C-alpha cells in the first residue's frame, strides 16, 4: 500500500492508499465528530455530521469524511464557519425528532444548536441506521430493516425473524442514540409478533 501525504487542519498527515479522511484523521489523533459511524460497520454517510472541507487543486468541496478517500496533496479542514453551520443545522433538524437524546444535547452545546428551531416530529428515530446495519453486517440476521422512503422512511422489525432472534440478542439496543429502537421493538413485539401457540405448531 503506497503512502499518501495530505493536510488536515494545517497538519501534515501520512495515510495509506485506500483510507478515508476519517481514518487518516483518527490515526493522526485529529477528531472529527460522527453520528452514524461505527468501527464494526461499513461507513454509511447518512448523518453527514462528519462533513469537512476538502480542497483539491484550489476547488473546495464539502464531503463526508467517513467515505471520502485520501488523495495526494488533499487539504482538509475539519472546522470552518460553513462546516460548523452545517453541523449546527443537522443537529437542529435531528433535535426536532429527539430533543432529549444525550449525545445530541452534548453536541448541541458545542455547536450552538437550538433544539426548538424546527417544528417537532413525533418519531424520535434519527435514521443513523446503526441497528439495521449491525443486524445485517455483524449478526447477519436481518431482523430489522428500513421501510418506505423520504420523510415516511422508518425502521421496522420483521416480526417472524425478530420473534426468534431478538430476545436472546439485543446487541443493537446500546447502539441506539435515542432509544427509538427499544420503543420500536416493544411495539413490534406487542402488535406483530406471531402468537406463541402458532410458532409452537
Amino acid at each position, binding site marked *: 500500500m503506497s503512502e499518501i501525504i495530505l493536510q488536515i487542519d494545517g497538519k501534515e498527515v501520512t495515510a495509506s492508499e485506500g483510507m478515508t479522511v476519517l481514518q487518516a484523521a483518527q490515526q493522526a489523533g485529529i477528531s472529527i465528530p460522527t453520528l452514524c459511524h461505527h468501527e464494526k460497520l461499513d461507513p454509511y454517510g*447518512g448523518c453527514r455530521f462528519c462533513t469537512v472541507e476538502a480542497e483539491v487543486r484550489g476547488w473546495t468541496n464539502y*464531503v463526508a469524511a467517513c467515505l471520502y478517500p485520501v488523495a495526494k496533496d488533499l487539504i482538509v479542514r475539519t472546522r470552518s464557519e460553513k462546516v460548523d453551520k452545517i453541523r449546527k443545522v*443537522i443537529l437542529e*433538524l*435531528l433535535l426536532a425528532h429527539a430533543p432529549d437524546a444525550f449525545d445530541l444535547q452534548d453536541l448541541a452545546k458545542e455547536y450552538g444548536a437550538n433544539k426548538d428551531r424546527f417544528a417537532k416530529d413525533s418519531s424520535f428515530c434519527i*435514521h443513523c441506521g446503526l441497528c439495521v446495519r449491525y443486524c445485517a453486517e455483524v449478526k447477519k440476521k436481518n431482523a430489522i430493516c428500513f421501510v418506505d*422512503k423520504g*420523510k*415516511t*422512511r422508518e425502521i421496522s422489525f420483521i416480526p417472524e425473524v425478530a420473534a426468534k432472534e431478538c430476545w436472546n440478542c439485543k446487541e443493537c439496543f446500546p447502539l441506539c442514540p435515542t432509544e427509538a429502537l427499544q420503543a420500536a421493538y416493544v411495539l413490534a413485539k406487542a402488535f406483530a409478533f406471531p402468537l406463541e401457540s402458532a410458532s409452537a405448531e
Partner: protein
Amino acid sequence: MTRIKSAAELEELRQGILSKIDPDKPSISICAGLSCLGLGNGKLISAFKEELGKQSLEAKVDVITTGCHGFCEKGPIVVINPEEICYLEVKPEDVPEIISQTVIAKKVIDRLIHTDPNTGEKAAHMSDIPFYKNQMRVLMGNNSKINPKSIEDYLAIGGYSALAKALLKMSPVQVLEEVKIANLRGRGGGGFPAGRKWETTRNAPNEVKYVIVNAHEGEPGAFMDRALFQANPHSVLEGLIIGAYAIGSHQGFIYTRHDTPELRKNVDLALAQAEEYGLLGENILGSGFDFKVEVHYDVGIFVSGESSALMRSIEGKAPEPKPKYIRTSVNGIWDRPSNLNNVETWANVPQIIGKGSEWYNSIGTDKSKGTKLISLSGHVCNSTVVEVPMGTSLREIVYDFGGGIPNGKKLKAIHFGGPMGGTIPESLIDNPLDFDVLSKLGASMGAGDMLMMDEDTCLVEVARYFLDFLSGESCGKCVPCREGIRQMLNILTNMTKGKGREGDIELLEELSEVIGAAALCSLGRSVQNPLLSMLKYFRAEFEAHIKEKRCPAHSCKELIALEGV
C-alpha cells in the same frame, strides 16, 4: 434477411427499398405519440382501418401509425400522403369524409386544416403550417413519414449511412474528434461536452467499457425524449453504435421507463431488426466491430434518472446515487468505465457524423450548438414538442410556437428543468435559448422542458409543490435532504396557509445552503434550486404571504379568505 456486410450492400438494399416505393400511392399517417394516444387516437386508427375495409381499399391505401409529429395540442393528427395534407383534431366521425374527399377525390376539407389564430390564414400542407415551417426539425422532421416499427422506413430516409461512414471510413479517434469539434453538449440536463465525456471513458484504464442511453425522462413536464425515441428509435440506436465505436465499448444499455408500452415495443423491435440486418451484433457491416445492447427498465422512481443511480439499477440494485466526486465515466457499472448520454444527445450523433461538424457548428450560438427539443407545457396554448436552433429567443418559443398564454392571461414566469431547475420572470423572455445564458440567470435549461405559469399562479405554492414532489422521491438516507426537505415543506405549506412567520425566508435560505453543501447526492444538492430562483426574482411575493398574509396571485385559498376579513 441476410446480414449486411458492407457499405455497398447497405446502399444496394436502400436503393432496393426506395425503388419499391410508389410515390403516388396514397397513405394515411396517423400520429400515435403519447399525447395523441391520450387524446383518443386509438378509435381513429380502428375507424380508418374499418372504413378502408368497407370500401375494399386496404390494398390501395396504406395506413401507418407513426410517432409524435410534435403539434400535440392539435392532436389527433392525420397526414394524407403523398400530398402531405395535414388534418388536426381529427375525430372518428371525420374518417369517411377524409377517405372519400381527400384520399380518393384529392380535395381538402377546410374545417380540418390549420387556421392561424391571429390572421385566419389557412394551411393545408404540413410544410406550410407555420408551427412546422418555422422550426428546424433535424431530429423530429421525419417522424410523420416513418413507421417506427419498420427499419426499412428508416433506411429509406438514409438511416445507418452515418454508421457505415463511421465504421468503414473513419477511425474511432476520428469519430471522437468530430464529435468534440462539433461541441455536442449533453441534452439531458448537464450540458456537459459529450466529446470530452466520451474521451474520458475511452482513456479510462479498463478493457471493458459500457455505453448507456438514458431514456428515463422522469422530469415532470419533459416529454421530448419519449416523443423522439418512440417515433424514431433507430436514430438513437445509430448514434449509440457510433459512440460505442468511438469509445471502444462492445456492450450498450438502454434504460427506459417501464410504464410506456408503445415505447418499449418500438425499442425492442428496433433492436431485433437491427440485429437481423447486421447493424447490431457481431461484425457490424463487415467492419469487424461487435456491439450488443440490453434493455433495462426503471421501477418508477425519479432518482433513477440520475446517472450513478441508473447505473446501480442496471446492476440490479436499488437506484441509490453515488457522490458526485466518483466519476462514472471511469467507475460506472460494476466499477467499469461507463459513458451515459441522453436520448437526444445520441440522436444528434448520426447527424454530426453524416453532415459534418462544420454543418453542426453553423447552427446555434457560440457555445451552444445544434438544435434543441423543447417540451412546452402548463399555461400555454400549444402544449407541444418543438425543435429549434440554440439561440432562439424564448419569446419566439413561447409566443410563436407556443401560441402564447390561454384565456387572455398574462405570462408571469417560465420554469426550466423541473423540480431541480429554476424559474425566470416574464421580463427576461428576450433571452436566447443557450446553456450558459440560462445558467447565469439561475434557470438551467435542464432537459429542455419549459413550463409556462400565468398571472394566477402563486409561486410560493409552486415552490411548495416541487418540495412535496421531492419529499416523495428522496431516498431518505441522508439528514440534510430527508429532514431539510421535511422542514422546508412545512415552512412553505404554512406560508400558503397564512401561518408564515418573520424569519421564514432566511431560514429557507439557510437550509438551502446546508442541503446544497452537505447532501449525499445530486438530487439532494439540487432541491433548493427552484426556490432560490423564485426568491431571486419574486421575493416580494413570498414576503407578502408572511408580512401581509396576502397571496398576490389570489390563489392560496386560506389567504383569500383572510383578505375579506
